[in-house]
């Protein structure tokens, strides 16, 4: 910084800096602690509680129960079923969505396409639709009786037990392709023009440039979107919740978050807290593993 470059004022400015930093960081730190760290700590605390009572209607007392709730949670088959379901969902949906996002970003970035601004906006618009509204809209589109495409939806029941997961995958893809595309696209814009110039001088075609230059250079952006998507997948809540009103095939334990929600409404708060903590750990492990595996290639 310019002031730090002046030796005589260094001391003063250091102190001033520290104060300024404190002032700027304080609102964030306060909110972060209040709405982030404390709730997490409280959830962890709750997950270690068990209920005790005397008789059939004695008042409940919460006491320390160690890892009882975690043992319960790990033995719960709906929990594992729901994890399996979102993993299957993620393994298929995330690559498809990111591949589409990458293709759209490359097309927008290529000199061959006209109407770039229009398409950029058009692809991004679905992301501006709130997730719940998007799910309701697609629910009606899929419905065998209310859809405008009834001949299709009556012959293929997209809301049946076999297909409803993929019907939701389609909704999530529709909403998030544009968002991910924009992240990748902005990373493409950051590539210096000289690189392309050099490639063209060497006689590289547009396809070759995309494959050998653009994709490797935007790899960090792709990995970022992949991590966001993995986390988003494990947290699926709005789509299955809304689809419960369209399809009998979506149970109250369809995804881990829905399971947490219905457990909390019993109300069995300690068990719901244990599910949440496990889900957060699983998300962390999965995202971190993904990062570990991919970073060697991407961040060389």
């Amino acid at each position, binding site marked *: 910084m310019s002031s730090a470059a002046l030796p005589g004022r260094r001391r003063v400015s250091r102190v001033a800096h520290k104060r300024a930093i404190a002032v700027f960081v304080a609102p964030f730190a306060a909110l972060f602690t209040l*709405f*982030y760290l404390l*709730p*997490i700590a*409280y*959830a962890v605390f*709750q997950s270690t509680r*068990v*209920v*005790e*009572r005397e*008789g*059939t*209607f004695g*008042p*409940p007392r*919460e006491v320390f129960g160690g890892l009882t709730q975690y043992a*319960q949670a790990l033995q719960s088959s709906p929990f594992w079923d729901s994890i399996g379901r979102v993993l299957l969902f993620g393994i298929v949906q995330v690559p498809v969505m990111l591949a589409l996002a990458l293709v759209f970003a490359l097309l927008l970035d290529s000199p061959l396409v006209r109407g770039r601004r229009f398409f950029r906006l058009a692809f991004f618009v679905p992301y501006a639709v709130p997730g719940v509204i998007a799910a309701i809209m697609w629910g*009606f589109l899929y419905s065998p*009786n*209310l859809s405008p495409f009834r001949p299709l939806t009556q012959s293929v029941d997209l809301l*049946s*037990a076999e297909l409803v997961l993929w019907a939701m995958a389609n909704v999530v893809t529709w909403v998030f392709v544009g968002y991910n595309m924009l992240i990748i696209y902005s990373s493409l814009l950051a590539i210096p023009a000289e690189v392309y110039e050099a490639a063209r001088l060497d006689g590289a075609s547009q396809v070759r440039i995309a494959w050998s230059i653009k994709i490797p250079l935007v790899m960090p952006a792709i990995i970022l979107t992949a*991590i966001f998507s993995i*986390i988003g997948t494990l*947290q699926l809540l709005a789509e299955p919740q809304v689809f419960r*009103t*369209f*399809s*009998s*095939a*979506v*149970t*109250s*334990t369809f995804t881990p*978050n829905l399971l*947490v*929600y*219905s457990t*909390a*409404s*019993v*109300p*069995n*708060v300690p*068990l*719901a*807290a244990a599910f*949440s*903590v496990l*889900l*957060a*750990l699983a*998300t*962390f492990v999965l*995202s*971190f593993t993904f*990062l570990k595996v991919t*970073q060697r290639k991407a*961040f060389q």
Partner: protein
Amino acid sequence: MRTTTRAVSVALLALTALTACSSGADDGAAGAGDTASGGACEPAGEPVTLTYTTWIPGIEDVVATWNEANPDIQVEVQTGPNGNGGTYQNFFNQLEAGNAPDLGQIEYDALPNFRVQDGLVDLGACEEVVAAKDQFVDWTWQQVQLGEEDSVYAIPQDAGPMALFYRADLFEQNNIPVPTTWEEFATAAEQVRAAGGYITNFSQADINQFAGLVWQAGGSWFENDGEQWTVDLTNEESVKVASFWDDLIERDLVSTYPGWTTEWDNAYNSGEVWTWNSAVWGANSIATGAPDTAGRWAVAPSPQWEDGDASAGNWGGSTTAVFQGTEHPYEAAKFALWLNTSEEALTALIEAANLYPATTDGAQLPALAEGVEFYGGQPIYDVFAEASEQVSPDFVWGPTMTQVYNDVSDGFSQAITGGGTLTEALESAEGTTVSALEAQAIPVAK
């Protein structure tokens, strides 16, 4: 260095999952149960304001009538979604946080659940409440006592005796007799299917409706002998009812739309579905959900299991409960009594929400004798009055009905979509219910 930063940010992102999930549970740290319990029921001696949460349509006008006449006991009413649709969860969270409203609407089936969470004030200490006992239909009062001699955990509001709503026009046009037994119902189902419709919709979401059918058949899912609970979702009657519907579902004689959705409304409004064996308040649901069918409906008694039987099930019906943490149990009880026993309040509730009062006098109100236009001018409440007398007083609700409904409903979903049967769903839910009771440290007989 870069790796560490990334690892940290990933960790933070992952933790977002945790914050997002736990927010429902974090509304407050104070445990319920140590707040003022209902030992005394004394007037405050000063003007008070009470809060009341409910989902009765048109309640605002009824409360306004009270507020005008009682400047010293003002009631602020708040409406929300129906109980299992979200209001109960709010109540549980508010109780946990120590900021529950003074009064709330709770259906009979959910009362034990709130009792187990220690959320209800025992109004047995309020003289006026105890004195009102004789005004209520016996079984409704029994439901609010929860098996305790001197306790009253809520004021009964309405009952949900069940009868058969049917499309009189369609049955007549197709020469199908209106079924009086379940056997005839199954036969009629075939005829209706042949005519291109469905006789009714089996909703996997409405387990309390299914419980009403079991209730009618003489079964009960729970028992509480004062020391421990018995869970029996697979008694003879339940299995009989489940097999009956299993058969209809398997033969595609009933539709299976999720209840209370646009799809479901559409099925009734378009004439695809012809009957609904539902509670008295269902009169309102059909009128709002299927407006195009006005004038074409009629009501008959529910089909019976044996020819000549006369028993009815019950679905829903609510109470007005006073929550732990209230500072004014006396005033709250006073309002709840007025709301559920006075002629003016009950008449308004009947007209606005088709409620069927839980008091014996209320059931005689002139508003209930009138013909209802939507039902072709039929005085439909006569049918329900008869059904009300046929409801068995012995049906007991368990202390974790939200969980029971969830688990049975999940099993029913699978049965409807081709994985298993309703009977299997009941068996599996019986197991999970026992575990749920144990998790709440409630003694269960095995």
